[in-house]
């Protein structure tokens, strides 16, 4: 096995009186500072019929706040020589900027203004504009892409209503159209409070001074109400659920999904490593057999989803032209059955483990990724130091652990199978 580097930089966690958790990670090799804010709110906090709201709301957070003009968030960041963005997922929404380090206070001013003083700046006009932008985002990413609706459908089938992973993060078009400005206010007051957020600084700064500045900008924001974690019962799938989706695609594709451990579970690394052991790289057993030997598929990949209250293990394969998708399904099923019957050879495990370790440290080269991972570890585990021990959770896994997970979770009578096939009818 390859040797295991550590970050070897201090990581410090503190909490303001209003409940805002602060993580400080000085790393001064470049004159850059990454600021990262996680709000523990995502599409799972939405209600049926109101899907897409958390994401639409994220867009509104770039439309200015009481002291920051409409397009000024990006203007201030970009004229400072920084980059900024945000993203919404099922469980969290993040906002981040990387700035030349002399602009630390600018970043704190911008982020604290929209945490504390958003509502006076909201207008119907901005809301309509961003609704239209988001509708175009949905068209561009989902509705106008081949296979674009496949994962949406897969999750609808895997998580029965009213489970909050049932609906897509970007939301349904009708729901996006129905969202109102009044809902912005309620959503903001409930979820965008300091006690529901983690603020991480990574990069070139002096920790004591930075903490004083953070207290100054964020300390005056009032604590919000206590938030109940979202809970949802998840019944095991009653049997195999099958569906065929017709789409304007050239090659048929199969999606197979199972319930799996959540990101917070000790078993998540097991599922993740198994996915990589099965399909990661050209020398992986599924690529070798399905793509190389049998030439049934163009691509095959297994993946686990980093979600909080439930998890999913999925495997996706695209059939080569002229190959029936049923043949691909049979071959995939045979491999999953084998994984559930006998442990993988150690060589497959070592490949997956070394690939994980390398890519884990590759991603940590960027301050932005470090800061985001620190926010994640703090939001979910209240332990930013876990960034240095995370890799250990993978290193200790054995072929028997992977086998046990496969045998218990990848069951043919508890799965969703979705075929996406070419729609040959003229419309």
């Amino acid at each position, binding site marked *: 096995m*390859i040797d295991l*580097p550590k970050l070897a930089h201090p990581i410090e966690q503190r909490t303001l009186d209003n409940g805002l958790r602060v993580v400080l990670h000085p790393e001064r090799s*470049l*004159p*850059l500072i990454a600021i990262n804010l996680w709000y523990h709110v995502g599409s799972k906090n939405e209600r049926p019929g109101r899907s897409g709201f958390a994401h639409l709301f994220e867009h509104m957070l770039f439309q200015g706040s*009481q*002291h920051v003009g409409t*397009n000024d968030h*990006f203007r*201030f960041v970009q*004229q*400072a*020589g*920084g980059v900024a963005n945000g993203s919404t997922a099922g469980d969290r929404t993040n906002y981040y900027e*990387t700035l*030349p380090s*002399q602009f*630390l*206070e*600018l970043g*704190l*001013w*911008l982020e604290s203004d929209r945490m504390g003083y958003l509502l006076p700046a909201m207008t119907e006009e901005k809301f309509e*504009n*961003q609704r*239209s*932008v988001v509708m*175009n985002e949905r068209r561009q*990413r989902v*509705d*106008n892409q*081949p296979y674009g609706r496949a994962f949406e459908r897969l999750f609808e089938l895997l998580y029965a209503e009213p489970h909050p992973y049932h609906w897509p993060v970007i939301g349904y078009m009708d729901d996006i159209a129905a969202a109102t400005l009044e809902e912005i206010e309620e959503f903001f007051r409930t979820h965008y409070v300091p006690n529901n957020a983690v603020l991480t600084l990574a990069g*070139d700064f002096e920790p004591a*001074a930075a903490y*004083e500045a953070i207290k*100054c*900008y964020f300390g005056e924001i009032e604590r919000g109400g206590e938030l109940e974690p979202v809970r949802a019962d998840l019944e095991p799938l009653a049997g195999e659920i099958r569906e065929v989706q017709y789409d*304007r*695609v050239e*090659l048929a594709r199969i999606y197979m999904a199972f319930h799996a451990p959540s990101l917070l579970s000790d078993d998540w690394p097991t599922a993740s490593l198994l996915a990589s052991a099965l399909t990661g*790289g*050209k*020398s*992986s057993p599924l690529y070798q057999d399905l793509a190389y030997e049998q*030439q049934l598929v163009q691509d095959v990949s297994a993946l686990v989803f980093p979600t909080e209250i439930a998890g999913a293990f999925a495997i996706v394969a*695209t059939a*080569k*032209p002229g190959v029936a998708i049923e043949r691909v399904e049979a071959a995939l099923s045979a491999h999953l059955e084998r994984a559930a019957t006998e442990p993988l050879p150690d*060589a497959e495990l070592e*490949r997956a483990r*070394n*690939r*994980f370790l*390398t*890519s884990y*440290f*590759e991603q940590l*080269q*960027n301050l932005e990724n470090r800061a985001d991972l620190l926010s994640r570890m703090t939001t979910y585990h209240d332990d930013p130091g876990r960034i240095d021990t995370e890799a250990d959770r993978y290193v200790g896994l054995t072929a028997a652990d992977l086998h046990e997970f496969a045998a218990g979770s990848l069951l043919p009578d508890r799965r969703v199978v979705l075929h996406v096939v070419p729609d040959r009818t003229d*419309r």
Partner: protein
Amino acid sequence: MTAAAANRLDRSSPPSPGPVRPFAFLPFERHQLDDGLVLFAAPKRDVPLTSFELLGPMGASLDPPGRSGLAALTAAMLDEGTTSKTSREIAAGAERIGGYLSTTTDWDSVSLATGVVSSRADVALRLLAEVVCEPTFPEDELERLRDRVLAEIRRRRVVPSALAAVQFARALYGDSPYGWPVIGTTDSVSSTSRAEIERFYREHLLSTPITLIAVGDFEVDELRDRARKALGRLANGALGPLPPPQDTEGGDAGVYLVDRPEAVQTELRLGHVGVERRHPDFTTLAVMSFLLGGKFTSRLNLNLRERHGFTYGIFSSFSRRRARGPFTVSSAVNTENVGAAIAEIRGELERLVAEPVTAEELEETKSYILGVFPYTVQSLEGISARLRDIAVHDLPLDHWQRYPAEVQAVTIEDVQLAARRHLDPDRLTVVAVGPETELRPQLEPFGEPAVWRPADEPEPCWAGSGRASRLDS
């Protein structure tokens, strides 16, 4: 910390910045190891990783007529078998140590890259050297690969951005290498033989100088010896000159409609032939293009996204190529607003040519470019990309050291002059990928559209085929 110390916080204006900490591009060395091998070595020791990139001049612009995709196919065959290893053994060799081999072919070069923990760097380097020096191009592997490439070409026929790219390239460059897809066409890939691939490799990779770019945690002296040992045999004294950049006569401007009847949005490209990477105006044009469409607060994005809500995003760029690459504006727009969007884009280009930019927006743009520069070179990969730019385009070795000052020196007059010289809003080629029935009436005011129906026709259309007409101005 200035404002932070105050008792009651004044939020009315942005806090002023602290002292600037200067940034300099990571120092690196260039060594001519022998006639055929150049090493760029940038030691960087904060993460125990090393990346290698082997760069050869075997780019897609060398594809002969009827053989588009030859360079890409040849490059992809390199790791499909060597004198001592099978395809599977090569992949397993890289993946066992946590790396992977990636092959990228663009217009001007082919690149084989891998990244590993430094303790395995020697294994990775020897593997890279082996696939570049001793490929055997096995016939059965070629058939497998050919099948995969043909399926990939087929898959792209329903991807809106891929269709737009194919039609746009053809419209600008006609029937010449920049006008063909790098991946090739069904016809060209089907008919390429093993002998052609082997000859192409011998002519354009085996007998041309190659460059090794290494970034990461290593000793330069040690690496030099290892590189010479692993790659020295490639140079056998029979080196040909670097291929000249291809001559690029732009096609006529025109309006092109790629029909996707089921599309719920329209993929849009506008542009014309631009300049080569080495053109003296390139840095000024880069500044201009950031201002126009290279950042969130660009003129195009503020207009089409933030003012009109026509799109999720819009971008403009000048491609970095050895010959004159395209100037491209790209976006995905909701179909009912395509006509209005084209008019707005053209209006922004006309304004850039007609009026000087303001001092404020030029300063903002320059600050953005300079501030973001260190951000783009945090990782080994980001540094490697900058060195690749120097190697491929034969830029001065201190290019990235001088770059901040060059950007800083760009004036309003420079931008205006560059816009007049290099932007031509009256000769824009327009490509719209979407439903013909809704698009046609919106495109007609800009010129009678030539129509490509990818569901029925394998090839895009272009002016030389007599189907496109000029953009009315």
